[in-house]
């Protein structure tokens, strides 16, 4: 065969596997919605748009997408509703396991497990979505609302999440993450960044949760050593919903009335937020205070910097063991910022906020919080160089313009 013929065959083959033009697959609610929508998500090819009509899709099972470069698009978060109240199987409403997927303009309601999960789905975009358990905060609701995990490049923009019995917006074991312009209401944790690297969480509203914004690192997981997280320009107020997480989950230990909670992470910056009306405290920095067996895990929070946040009332009803006694000793109220003292003086967070701050002096993470030896934390006069801005691939930003 001559070279020219080879080229011709090769080009023909490429034409077969690369669709010439992307198409739109339209799906409407009504009879057989489960199978029609699932079949559309399977039939879609890279570049295609699966367009959901307005109305309520009554679904009987979880949905899933496993094709790269597909956009799933509804007519709006109030107009197109994926209703999972009759769900009989699967651990989440919608599962995405492919790369370069855009999800936008629809709602997921009352899924039995998580709302939308994406696993190993790089460059995923969540935009203008609503994930809601419509009965409000109940222990019988699913765990996570929006749940990307094990992914690189994650954008969550302009979503609304309500009622998750764990975290409304949860990013786990991922890297290069932006969560912005979103609202988390009446979840146990509003927004949680866990075992993840390089995240910007900004311009969000977290209110009426148990805890507003959480930055955690946990042991015995494939990705540990969470670091480089910036929390800025958020409104984190009135997170006073009593903790409704089933015991056993790590968030069941989040005290009701927590603004921001950092646990066992490294290099976390909290600045330019409005934080207040949180009954336990506005900002809490703690070690992982449970027994664990994992030689690779570090339970200490390190290099946490806090500056230029605007605080209002905090600490009038601290909901953790020993909290009431400390508050009484301090004249009835717990400070707006506290650190448990994990690791000792060299781990002291850098605090420049104009707000009362306290160390509990619990250097040993195994010590009971009731054994606290509270001491005020001095205000820092300078802080280390800031973390860089998170930049996502341009195509992800373009997808929501």
């Amino acid at each position, binding site marked *: 065969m001559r*070279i020219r013929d080879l080229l011709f065959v*090769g080009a023909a083959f490429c034409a077969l596997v690369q669709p010439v033009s992307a198409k739109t697959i339209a799906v409407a609610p009504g009879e057989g919605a489960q199978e029609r929508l*699932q079949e559309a998500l399977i039939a879609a090819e890279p570049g295609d748009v699966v367009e959901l009509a307005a109305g309520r899709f009554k679904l009987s099972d979880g949905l899933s997408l496993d094709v790269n470069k597909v956009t799933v698009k509804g007519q709006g978060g109030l107009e197109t509703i994926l209703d999972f109240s009759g769900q*009989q199987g699967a651990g989440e409403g919608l599962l995405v396991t492919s790369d370069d997927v855009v999800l936008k303009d629809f709602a997921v309601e009352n899924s*039995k*497990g998580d709302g939308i999960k994406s696993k190993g789905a790089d460059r995923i975009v969540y935009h203008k979505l609503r994930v809601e358990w419509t009965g409000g905060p109940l222990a019988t609701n699913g765990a996570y609302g929006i749940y990307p*995990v*094990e992914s690189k490049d994650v954008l969550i923009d302009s979503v609304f999440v309500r009622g998750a019995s764990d975290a409304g917006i949860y990013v786990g074991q991922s890297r290069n993450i932006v969560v912005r312009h979103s609202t988390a209401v009446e979840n146990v944790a509003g927004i949680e960044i866990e075992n993840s690297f390089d995240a910007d969480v900004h311009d969000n509203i977290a209110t009426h949760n148990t805890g507003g914004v959480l930055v955690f690192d946990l042991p015995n997981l494939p990705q540990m050593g969470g670091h480089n997280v910036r929390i800025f320009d958020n409104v984190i107020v009135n997170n006073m919903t009593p903790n409704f997480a*089933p015991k056993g989950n790590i968030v069941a230990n989040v005290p009701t009335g927590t603004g921001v909670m950092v646990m066992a992470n490294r290099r976390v910056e909290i600045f330019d937020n409005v934080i207040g009306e949180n009954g336990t405290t506005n900002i809490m920095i703690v070690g992982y205070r449970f027994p664990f067996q994992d030689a690779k895990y570090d339970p200490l929070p390190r290099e946490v910097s806090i500056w230029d946040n605007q605080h209002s009332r905090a600490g009038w009803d601290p909901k953790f063991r020993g909290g009431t006694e400390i508050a009484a000793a301090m004249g009835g109220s717990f400070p707006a910022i506290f650190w448990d003292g994990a690791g000792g003086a060299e781990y002291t967070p850098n605090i420049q906020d104009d707000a009362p701050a306290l160390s509990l002096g619990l250097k040993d993470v195994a010590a009971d919080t009731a054994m606290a030896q509270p001491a005020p934390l001095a205000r820092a006069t300078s802080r280390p160089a800031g973390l860089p801005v998170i930049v996502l691939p341009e195509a992800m930003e373009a997808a929501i313009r």
Partner: protein
Amino acid sequence: MHFVVPFVLAFAAAVATSAASDDPATLAIAGPQNPATLSAFGFFDGGAARPSPRLIPYELRTPLFSDYAAKQRFIYVPEGTQIGADADGKLIFPVGSALIKSFGYPAKSGGLNVIETRVLLHQAQGWVALPYVWRADGKDADLRVGGTRVPVTFAHSGNDLSVNYSVPNKNQCKQCHSAAGNIMPIGPVWQNMAFLRPADVRATVKAAPALARLQPYPKWNDSSTGSLDDRARQYLKVNCGHCHAPQGSASNSGLFLDGSAQGAAALGIGKRPVAAGRASGDLDFIIAPGLPDQSILIRRMESTDPGIAMPELGRSTVHEEGVELLRQWIAAMPSNPH
């Protein structure tokens, strides 16, 4: 040019394969179109009860529980090819092979009322998983990539059980049959397999002599084949290990039940839940040694609520006998492992 040549070679290989056999299965397996009906493969002669003699029937010593469905398993390999194996007993199938599995329940009239047949096709680019649902007349089955549910009632331990049997959609096939994002067979490991025809055993061992030296794995429900610990771990490996593996769908849990766990925590012993949500049911540990009632693993196996139940797919009823095995296993663990 460097990019073009491999495509051309793949083309040439496909053409050569199809030219080598006039077996309809070879063309149907090669793709790229997924056949709309199961009969296109020629695996069955007009009904699930009549498999082609070209298929190699086999059983598993410890099978995956699927709502008490009975399963009929077959291997198809192209004419003139042979199954191989790696050193761990994992079978290697030539391109053009298929794994075929029918699911059904005993019919009142005797025999098996087959609901669906799933095929795993080994194409040149990798494996493809497809579900086919049998028609009411039982003569052929239709491709249902979107999956479906079929209400079924069957007798179990003297009672009638009703389940909304789930035919998985194509993506759900992959959720379990996935390793690092690619579709893979799960079951065919020699030590867990029993070929039903001696001639198939002889031919396979002849092609891969190392298989003869491998000890069979325990049967989960036969105490003469292994200790309680061995049988419980084998049950977990088969029923949970396809997702709970470092490259599987549940990799992020850090709970590894595929036999790869290093240390107690990765096996769930004394491990706190990560993303269990309400499935934790106010319990602290996946496995609380000595305390099955305090173990999230047991709670999730005993639930049929989709937000709690494990496995997530293919189970809408409780496997009482499997739960009992794991209860005994956990109860026998010393309550303080340190």
